[in-house]
C-alpha cells in the first residue's frame, strides 16, 4: 500500500487494521459454518444421538475458533479464538431464551386477549367457560390498588432511607446500607409468609388487599431506597454547600434543595420499585387469597391480582383457563414494560439534561 502523495493533497482517513484479506474472511466463514454443517449432517444420518451430536458441535465449534485464531494470529490467537467461540454460545443462549420467552407468551396469550378480557371480571366464569366471556378486570384493579398502596408506603420510607444514607455521615450510614442490602435479598415467598405469620395467622387481619400491599412493600422498599440513594448522590455537593453557606439548616437543605433537584430521579426510583413488584406472585399467595369478584376495598375481603390469577389459572387442566392465564401474563408483561420504559426514558432524559 504505497500512497504516492501529490504535493498539497490531503489523503483520506483509513483504518488499515480493519483490512481483512480474503483469506481471513474465508477462515472466519469456514470456522463458523463447518462445525454446524458437519454435526447437522451427522445428526440427520443418525450415526450419533442428538445429545452427542450437540456436544460434538460445541466442542468442534470451539476447536474451530481455536484453529481460526491460530491461523490468523499464531500461537497467541488460540485462546482468543476459543474465548470468542464460547462468547458466541453465551450470546446465542441468552438470545434464544429471550425470544423464546416472549414468543411463548405472545403466541399463547393473544388467543384470549380481547377488550372484554381486560375490563370484565371473572365472577360467573368457570375454567371451562369459552374465551368470549369474563376477564381479568378485577385482577387489574386489584393489582393497581395493591401496588398503589405499596407505593404510598414504600416511597416515602425508601426516600427517607436514601436521604439518611447520603446526608448523614458516620458509621450508622454503612449499617443502614447493609440493612437495605440484606432486605433486598429477602425472598419474595418469605415476605408473603412474614405478613401471613404476623398479621393473618395471629388473627389480627383476614386475607385482604392491604396484606398483599404490605408484603409488596417489603420487596419494593430496598429497590426504591437504593435507586434513590444513587440519584441523591448525583446532586452536586456545591449546591448543598451553597445552601448551607446561606444559613439553611440541614433539614431545609434536603427539603428545599436536594430533593427538588433530584425530583425526576426519585420518580425513576419509584417506577423501578413498581416494576420490581408488579409481577411478584409468591407474596400474594399467602396474603390476598384471590377472588373472582371485583373487590376494590383493600381492608375487607379477598382481592384478586394479575400474578395470582395467572398462578391459579395455569394450574387448571382446562384449555380455556390456561389461555386466559397466558393472556393475563401478556397484560402483566405489558405493564412491566410500561413501567420499565418510563423509568428508562426518565433517567436518560436526566442524563441528557446534565450535559
Amino acid at each position, binding site marked *: *500500500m504505497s*500512497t504516492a502523495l501529490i504535493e498539497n493533497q*490531503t*489523503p483520506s*482517513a*483509513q*483504518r*488499515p487494521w480493519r*483490512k481483512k*484479506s480474503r483469506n481471513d474472511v474465508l477462515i472466519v466463514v469456514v470456522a463458523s459454518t463447518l462445525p454446524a454443517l458437519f454435526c447437522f449432517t451427522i445428526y440427520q444420518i443418525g450415526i450419533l444421538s442428538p445429545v452427542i451430536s450437540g456436544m460434538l458441535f460445541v466442542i468442534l465449534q470451539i476447536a474451530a475458533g481455536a484453529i481460526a485464531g491460530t491461523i490468523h494470529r499464531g500461537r497467541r490467537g488460540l485462546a482468543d479464538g476459543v474465548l470468542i467461540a464460547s462468547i458466541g454460545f453465551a450470546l446465542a443462549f441468552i438470545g434464544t431464551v429471550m425470544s423464546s420467552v416472549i414468543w411463548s407468551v405472545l403466541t399463547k396469550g393473544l388467543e384470549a386477549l380481547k377488550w372484554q378480557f381486560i375490563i370484565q371480571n371473572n365472577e360467573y366464569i368457570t375454567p371451562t367457560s369459552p374465551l368470549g366471556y369474563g376477564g381479568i378486570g378485577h385482577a387489574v384493579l386489584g393489582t393497581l390498588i395493591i401496588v398503589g398502596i405499596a407505593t404510598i408506603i414504600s416511597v416515602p420510607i425508601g426516600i427517607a432511607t436514601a436521604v439518611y444514607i447520603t446526608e448523614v455521615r458516620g458509621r450508622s450510614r454503612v449499617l443502614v446500607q447493609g440493612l437495605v442490602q440484606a432486605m433486598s435479598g429477602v425472598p419474595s415467598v418469605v415476605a408473603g409468609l412474614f405478613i401471613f405469620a404476623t398479621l393473618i395467622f395471629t388473627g389480627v387481619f383476614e386475607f385482604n388487599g392491604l396484606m398483599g400491599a404490605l408484603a409488596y412493600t417489603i420487596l419494593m422498599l430496598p429497590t426504591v431506597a437504593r435507586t434513590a440513594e444513587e440519584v441523591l448522590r448525583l446532586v452536586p455537593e456545591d449546591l448543598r454547600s451553597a445552601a448551607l453557606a446561606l444559613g439553611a439548616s440541614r433539614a431545609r437543605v434536603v427539603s428545599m434543595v436536594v430533593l427538588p433537584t433530584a425530583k425526576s430521579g426519585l420518580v425513576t426510583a419509584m417506577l423501578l420499585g413498581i416494576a420490581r413488584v408488579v409481577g411478584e406472585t409468591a407474596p400474594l399467595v399467602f396474603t390476598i387469597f384471590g377472588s373472582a369478584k371485583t373487590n376494590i376495598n383493600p381492608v375487607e375481603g379477598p382481592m384478586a391480582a394479575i400474578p395470582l390469577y395467572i398462578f391459579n389459572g395455569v394450574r387448571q387442566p382446562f384449555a380455556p383457563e390456561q389461555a386466559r392465564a397466558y393472556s393475563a401474563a401478556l397484560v402483566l408483561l405489558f405493564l412491566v414494560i410500561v413501567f420499565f420504559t418510563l423509568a428508562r426514558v426518565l433517567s436518560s432524559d436526566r442524563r441528557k439534561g446534565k450535559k
Partner: protein
Amino acid sequence: MITTVEAVPFVAPKTQGAGVPDQDLVLASKNLYVWFGPRMVLADVSLNFPKNSVTALIGPSGCGKSTYIRTLNRMHELIPSAALAGQVIFEDKDIYDPTVNPVDVRLRIGMVFQKPNPFPAMTIKENVLSGLKLAKLSNSNQNELVEKSLSQAGLWNEVKDRLDNTGGSLSGGQQQRLCIARSLAVDPHVLLMDEPCSALDPGSTLRVEQTIRELSEFMTVVIVTHNMQQAQRVATYTAFFLLEDNNPGYAVEHGPTQHIFGNPIDQRTSDYVNGRFG
C-alpha cells in the same frame, strides 16, 4: 442535524530544521495523518528516528504528541474512532501492512506511560515477567531476565531483596522504572515514553533520565515531554509539534537538540523553547 461543510483541506507546512540523517534509521513515519472520527488531529508528520538515539517530542498540550507516539506501535488503533493515513516504517517494513501482526509490533516497540501503571495484583518479579505471560513468550532463565531488566532500568539494587512484594509497595519513581523494566523484559528495539516523568518528583525524574541515557546505548528511545530542560538533558534529537487555531497538529521543526534549543529556524520554535507560550 449534520451540515456537511466542504472544509478547506489543511496543508501542513513542511517540517523545517536540520532534520536527521537518513542512514541507520530504526523507525520513521512518512506523511502520517491521524484522525479521531471526522476530526484530523495530526497532519503530514514525517520524522526519522536513528538507531540508539533519544528523540524528544515537545510542544504545547493537545498538539498530538501523545497521539503521534501511539501510532508508532499501533496502540492508536485501539481507540474505536481512530483512523490514519501514511506509513510507519520500522526496520524497513510498514507496520500498518495488513500482513503485520500488531502484537509483534508492540513487542518490538515498547511503551511506557505517563502514570506509572504496574499491575497491582502482581509482585515486582511477576510485573517484570508479565510481558512473557501476556504475549505467551517463553524464557528459560527467568531469574536472569528479571535481574537484567531491572538492572537496565536502574532498579535492581533497590528491589533485589523484595522481589516478591507487590509493585504498589514502591515509590512513584520506582514504579515508573519497574514499568520500564517490564517493557525491557520482552527485548524491544524501540522504547516509546509518553511523559514518563510528569507524575514524578524531581529526584525520581533525574533517576529516570539517567536510565533513559543508559538505555540509549543499545536502543532507540522516543520521549514525549513538557519539560524543556528534560529534553535538553536526555535527547539527541528534538521535534517540535504545534497546533494552531482549529487545525490539526503538525511537526514544525525537527533536528539535533542543540539546534532546536540553540538556534531554531522557526520563530515559533524559538518562542516556545524560550517559554514565551505553551
